[in-house]
């Protein structure tokens, strides 16, 4: 096991910066994953400046063009620049899952901690509601949300976020229950701190690692499921560029003998999901090692 973090911290005599700790904890595979994620994040943030063309600019005189100096990855069936569509598509494909994880993590953590702290009837009621939600696979939950509120990225994101919440809540509740019986919580209570203050200022920071690992590990799933919903035509709506939508339109083009779009979009999805998964693995390996 990689223990390089301990001597470094001891030498400098001060805790490493967040960035320093991140680099020391991730290992080689994790670092590559981090670079991939940063590249996608950069593409999403800087899309208007780095994309060579307007992703929705149609050029019917130049459909299914092969890669060239003008169009580095060629064009699609409407003559739109594939590279520009990939760069712009990183926005929905990247930010959607981030929102899913952010919302489910915040609500799930709050539910989990409240459940563990209050206990009794509240704990039982929350557990029952979560049980029912566990009875529905995440993507089916999001599809149901779409059935009720109509197709669109917002509906799909909120639907998935609700579907992911019970998983976060269950993990956080278990950890919070263990943490609750530790002496420092009793010490806080003795000092007369309010329950809210103890939970937010003392309990939550100690669950931070667990919550982060859980969130990062779920990101890959969120990317896959959200892109799948868009692929089905129920999430991001054309002509907005999105990688899931691109695979769907690319499949139609493939059947006519033009597999480029599906190939590019499929590849970037796989690379990004692999990056999130590797990142989650190295973070959880690190967290597991430090707990032992």
């Amino acid at each position: 096991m990689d223990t390089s973090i301990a001597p470094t911290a001891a030498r400098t005599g001060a805790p490493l910066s967040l960035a320093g700790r991140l680099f020391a904890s991730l290992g080689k595979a994790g670092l590559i994953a981090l670079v991939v994620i940063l590249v996608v994040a950069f593409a999403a943030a800087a899309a208007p400046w780095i994309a060579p063309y307007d992703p929705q600019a149609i050029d019917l005189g130049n459909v299914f063009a092969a890669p060239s100096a003008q169009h580095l990855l060629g064009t699609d069936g409407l003559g739109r620049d594939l590279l520009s569509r990939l760069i712009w598509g990183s926005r929905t494909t990247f930010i959607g899952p981030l929102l899913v994880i952010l919302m489910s993590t915040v609500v799930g953590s709050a539910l989990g901690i409240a459940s563990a702290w209050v206990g009794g009837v509240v704990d039982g009621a929350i557990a029952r509601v979560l049980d029912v939600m566990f009875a529905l696979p995440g993507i089916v939950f999001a599809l149901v949300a779409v059935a009720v509120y109509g197709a669109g990225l917002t509906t799909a994101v909120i639907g998935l976020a609700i579907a992911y919440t019970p998983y976060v809540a269950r993990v956080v509740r278990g950890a919070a229950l263990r943490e609750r019986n530790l002496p420092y919580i009793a010490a806080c209570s003795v000092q007369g701190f309010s329950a809210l203050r103890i939970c937010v200022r003392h309990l939550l920071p100690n669950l931070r690692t667990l919550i982060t690992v859980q969130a990062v590990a779920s990101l890959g799933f969120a990317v896959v499921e959200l892109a799948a919903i868009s692929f089905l035509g129920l999430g991001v709506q054309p002509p907005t560029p999105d990688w899931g939508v691109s695979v769907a339109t690319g499949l139609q083009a493939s059947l006519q003998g033009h597999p480029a779009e599906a190939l590019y979009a499929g590849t970037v999805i796989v690379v990004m999901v692999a990056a999130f998964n590797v990142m989650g693995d190295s973070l959880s390996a690190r967290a597991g090692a430090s707990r032992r």
Partner: protein
Amino acid sequence: MGVGAFLVRRLVGFVLTLFIASFAVFSLMYIAPGSPLSFVLGPRTTSPAQIAAVKARYHFDDPFLVRYWDWLIGVLHGDFGRSIVLNQNVADLITARITTTTLLVAYATVLFVVVGVALGISSALRPGVVDGSITVVATLAIATPAFVLGTVLITSLAVNLGWFPVFGAGTGVAGRLVHLTLPAVTLAFASAAYLARITRSAVLDELGREHVETARSRGLSEQTVFRRHVLRNALIPIVTVTGLTIGALIAGAVIVETIFALDGLGSLLVEAILKKDFPIVQGVVLILVAAFMVINLVTDVMYTLIDPRLELGADPNT
């Protein structure tokens, strides 16, 4: 807690959860923006007489809870109501399509269990190149969404090489199996990789234990040690993950059926969502929920029974 009491408690919880889920599923049509009446009538222009007829047929004038109760009694008798768009009995539609989904999930289950366990064991027993390459391939395979793999397979194997039929479910037993091969591979792919990882770490865990060392020192053959002392213990996580993964395959089938234009429950659900055909959505979701819950229940009971060390009904996470 005895086995009987444990099973009864699990069953009661199961029925209760299913009951609540059915209420949630029924409420769908009523929490959607717009009145249920407008979903049934659609964009057609209607006379007051027609509206009254529809109201009477769907009992829209009854109180909500009465309608739920009538619906639930109907469902328990196998009557899921009538489709709004197709004007057929939802139960008939579901019956016609459930075979394809069941076959698809069963086929994919066989594939992912056989391939996943085999790869996982090879990976654990042959460190170095074999283990390394399986790990890299598995990492990429887990990250490959079904809709991406399905697109690649359709394009390469079905369209370009013509080895497999592109779309449809086929007829007859052999025809169905051939037609279901690409969809089943698509559905099983990421799960096989995931199970390979679980199997690998479970086998490696067991290989390092003292009881395995003891068995070796007693002069048992490597084969016997592996079969009786390593694999048997490693089975516990493998069985658990297999059960949970079958549940996930049910959700995956929704996407795979749509890509390959199979006439299963999943594609029925997607079509119904696109057309806002709520009776179908309600029926299919309820069936999926029930199937998902049955599989989780069976898994739960199985791994508790396989592992005598576990207290019945204990939370595996604590």
